């Protein structure tokens, strides 16, 4: 009988048979990365290259001028761009910290504690994975108006904290921790809070990293709060500033393009860096992401 000819998932070393996968994976990857390479190149182009005709893809004489322009620029109402960036950073850091805290707490309760209505509530959360915030923009707006959050800094933060996928991933991950570990800690007289803080949290670092990335991506890129709930220019975020640039550049205007290109890079780069640092943790969490 011939030796096993079937698939070799997760091969340890290179083999000729893998070439056929590279044959389409590499061209496709190159194609997909092009717009991103383009952002990098465009951001460093001096003004004559930005408007060179015919347009060139790669930068020839890179310059930081676009970034200098961006940071010295102010928008129409006199708000410096750095203010938007500062708001974005503050909002993002607070949202990430609170999402992780609330998500791990609720995930622990759903996974390891007993209470009434547990399965129903988790079921509701699973259905809410399908929730599309854009669909209920208007009732959300009315609610936020009614509780007086319009024009408040918190309106960036509070809606972003309700993240069903965060709780979902946390719970699935905490399920992997054996109950015996918690029982043993209880025997030693540890409180639930102590178990949560000293045992659970250190064990679920991969899930924390993953939820951190997801919440980062959603809040860093979000324009909803700035567009709808905030009138005070000084409280708006960088992604909002970005969206105003998007409408300005649609006519390929000379003034904004360099600034817009460097701003796109600033929007994208933190996503990439954080993901590269945490990617192995993310893959570890995703192994437990299944819906059963």
């Amino acid at each position: 009988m011939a030796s096993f000819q079937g698939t070799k998932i997760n091969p340890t070393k290179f083999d000729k048979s893998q070439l056929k996968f590279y044959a389409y994976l590499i061209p496709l990857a190159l194609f997909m990365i092009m717009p991103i390479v383009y952002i990098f190149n465009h951001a460093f182009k001096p003004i004559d290259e930005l408007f060179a005709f015919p347009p060139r893809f790669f930068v020839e004489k890179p310059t930081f001028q676009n970034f200098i322009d961006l940071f010295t620029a102010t928008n129409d109402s006199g708000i410096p761009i750095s203010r938007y960036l500062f708001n974005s950073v503050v909002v993002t850091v607070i949202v990430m910290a609170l999402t992780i805290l609330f998500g791990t707490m609720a995930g622990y309760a759903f996974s390891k504690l007993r209470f009434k209505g547990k399965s129903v509530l988790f079921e509701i959360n699973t259905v809410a994975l399908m929730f599309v915030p854009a669909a209920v923009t208007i009732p959300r707006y009315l609610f936020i108006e009614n509780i007086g959050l319009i024009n408040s800094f918190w309106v960036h933060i509070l809606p972003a904290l309700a993240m069903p996928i965060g709780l979902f991933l946390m719970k699935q991950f905490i399920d992997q921790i054996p109950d015996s570990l918690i029982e043993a800690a209880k025997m030693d007289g540890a409180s639930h809070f102590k178990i949560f803080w000293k045992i659970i949290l250190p064990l679920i670092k991969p899930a924390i990293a993953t939820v951190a990335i997801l919440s980062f991506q959603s809040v860093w890129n979000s324009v909803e709060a700035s567009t709808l709930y905030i009138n005070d220019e000084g409280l708006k975020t960088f992604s909002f500033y970005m969206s105003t640039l998007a409408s300005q550049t649609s006519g390929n205007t000379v003034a904004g393009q360099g600034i817009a290109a460097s701003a796109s890079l600033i929007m994208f780069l933190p996503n990439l860096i954080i993901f590269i640092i945490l990617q192995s943790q993310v893959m570890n969490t995703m192994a437990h992401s299944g819906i059963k």
Partner: protein
Amino acid sequence: MKMKSRRLNLTPWGFLSPYLLLFLCFIVIPVVSAIALSFTYFNAIEAPTFTGLSNYVNLITQDQVFMQYVLPNTLTFALIVGPGGYILSFFLAWSLAQVTKKMRTVLALIIYSPSMTSGIAMAVVWTIIFSGDEAGYLNSLLIRMGVILEPIQWLQSPQYLMIIMIAVTLWGSMGVGFLAMLSGVLNIDNEIYEAGYIDGIKNRFQEIIYITIPSMKPQMLFGAVMAVVNTFQAGAIGVQLSGANPTPQYAGQLMVNHIDDYGFIRYEMGYAAAISVVLLLLVYVFSKVAWRLFGDKD
């Protein structure tokens, strides 16, 4: 004794309350009030007045734009981007699992990275690439290759806008679901494959259908739900690309834009809420199909 049991019962709620409270405020209440508002006439100034099903009736019978453009657009967009992006995600995840770890990590990062870009940041890039004059990257390339003679107004032409929206969304659709499926494929035990081949599986295709997919159903379902949500979430792309709501000749008008049009431009909140409810139902139905396909049958 009684005291103790009561204390114990409160602990879970202590852990749960921050999340549940926010969940209630920003997900449950908006959905419930969308349903309630959908049965009213509400212009955001006077109090809502109950009008029964008239919003829904109008939506189906009177709203020409909705029936002629918005609904077909939404379904076309969703049916191509949803299943298309999903199958592509699975196929790429499966292919990546067949190569060695170093290359896989690099390629997976590249394929995942478009999903990290936000619609807003990329809208700037796309408007430059698809710019309508001959200095636009695509126009310039096509003119030099001799495919076209005159520059094309990509983002303002009804016949191209939808195609570009679909292409751009597919480009960024290898997100969390893709990562979940990749780790799903990688976690299948090799012995299952060996057993499958002993039982008579003959080729790679049979292997995928009979072993790979059934072994990673939970990840397949998670990926499917993510695909559905991302598809309907991506609704704003047409407005971002063309820079106008409504989009040129309603070519890229999706339900999300229609809601904004009625809610924030015409202030017909009750009507907008009815569209929201229809959209949420649509998402739900699509997800239910995924559940049927990959959920636990028993």
